[in-house]
């Protein structure tokens, strides 16, 4: 199945193509892949993060589905 993955702020350098940037990349994933699996395979630092699937907060054990958009942010805030 195909899933879009976008990484933001300090995490964008962990995109496997090494090109950084916030543009989403398309990943071909096995059925049953969870967000935790993705975090592990991308080698994201073991720090708090904010994760959205299709614009809604999602827990690390969320099982990704065809066509979903996963976006991961480090802790950010402002205003």
């Amino acid at each position, binding site marked *: 199945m195909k899933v879009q993955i*976008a990484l*933001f*702020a*300090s995490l*964008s350098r962990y995109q496997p193509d090494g090109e950084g940037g*916030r*543009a989403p990349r398309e990943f071909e994933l096995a059925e049953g892949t969870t967000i935790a699996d993705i975090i592990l395979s991308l080698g994201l630092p073991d*720090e*708090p993060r*904010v994760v*959205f699937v299709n*614009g*809604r*907060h999602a827990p690390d054990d969320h099982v990704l589905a065809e066509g979903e958009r996963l*976006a991961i*942010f*480090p*802790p*950010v*805030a*402002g*205003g």
Partner: protein
Amino acid sequence: MTRDILRVDMGDLSITRQPLPDAWRRYGGRALTDAIVYSEVPPDAEPLGPDNVLVFAPGILGGTSAPNGGRISVGGKSPLTGGIKESNSGGQAAHALARNGIAAVVVTGAAADPDARYCLVIENDGSASLERVDEWAGLGNYDLAEEIAATRPEGDRYATIQTGPAGEAGAKAAGIAFSDPKGYPNRFAGRGGLGAVMASKGLKAVVVSDKGHGFLGHADKEAFNASMKRFATALKDHAVTGQALPAYGTNVLTNILSEAGGLPTRNFSHGTFEMADDIGGERQAETIKARGGEEHHGCHTGCTIQCSRYWMDKDGHYKTKGPEYETAWSFGADCGIGDLDEIAELDRACGDLGLDTIEMGATMAVYMDSGALEFGDADGALKALMSGVEGGTPGRVLWNGAAATGKEFGVGRVPTVKNQAMPAYDPRSVMGIGVTYATSTMGADHTAGYTVATEILKVGGEADPLKPEGQAELSKNLQIATAALDSLGFCIFVAFPVLDIPEAFAALHELAAAHTGDEWDADSLMQVGREALTFERLFNEKAGFTAADDRLPAWMMTEKLPPHNVVFEVTDAELDSVFDFVPDTAREMGLA
């Protein structure tokens, strides 16, 4: 430690200095401006008439070395909302006033000659005078800063407080500019039209010299330094204040709010912006670096977060501050503009004219929605904005804000509460902030109770932004805590570590206690927050506000916001519960 009130009567041009009444010794910043406005301004006063007062007050910790403790509160009756206003700013003035022993400057009356302009000069020995400066009439904030500089002795160190041409025109969206550590007049008490109140009194500028003054001393120096160290460590250790804000600035929020479907786009018609990344904090940081700008700095001395930055033009010259998130949103996503240089041009124009960029971006989006301009037309927006300089249209209508503009140009979708435009979070997909917008005494104001931290950013717990449950309680608690922070003089960004790290919260009242020698604890700190809000609520009630004013516009309950296709669902009863503590607090204060 001296904490005096400097009273400046613009009617007879007299200046007097009085000790702060003992009943107000626990008040600084917002609590103090509230107490003074509540006590001195008739609730039915004409905001731009002589009965209004304008108050500048550093917080309890102003002038000290407390990290991020140099914010200033500006108070008065707002010409935009018709209610009480506390507009908060960074810049150097809070420290400079406090180091001269001034807890508040209270400006009353109005100059007899409407063409007269005055500059209030406070020297570093605490003496003060009013100088006639008619030749400064109509000057933009940047030229005005240079004129002021030419009057100062060589080697002076001073802060400025200024109002621009928009304030002089009586614009309801006019803000007050404060000089930053490099002297640029680019920090703003933007909201609520207080720049027009300042100008209505004949006051064009205030200069405060603090040359030779160091940090203020403390009642208990050892305890102060120990708490300060713990507080500074928490600010550095927290990922938001230690990493994200210094690296990307406030505009780091653009991408995450767009992702969450909460970034109001094209006059609140959509919750995501397809060009979000082009105007977001990551792109901003990359561009500033490529143009040779400095990475970051504090908006006032003593800031350790360092979320401020300067936008450099394509030739590497200073253009304006930030732009901050709110401005990148208001002139960006909300106006359909996806170019940071174009946004910076509009930010610079507002900064020079002395206009609130939140109000003006939201206003421009309403104007675009009328069909008068295409969304995305940055040149047209700048031209419309500048048309107010000569007194023409549509500029002077736009300068009065989103509500006035919606009325004039027949737009139904006007995102305001109490006539003040909503900032950069759509309350339909970030429902907690909708509670704050609806109920805040200030009109739609995100800083009054920043539930976004919990709803979107997972700071200080978690709440589902798409659900109404628990949002009223969250907003209430944050509104009280924010009023307390505003009274101590802290930047509200300290709330991010304070909400997550218990030692950081404890440090707030420990610092106040060690500095003043008074007893402060968690309860008394929150009590000051409740008292500030109580002054505000009571003033607004007397000015005619009712529960009907604590509501979002009706269309936000029916018009679904894509992409989540949601409407605002918090009930009226829940909104009305937010200020349920006011009768009790008023009794405790003897105001019932």
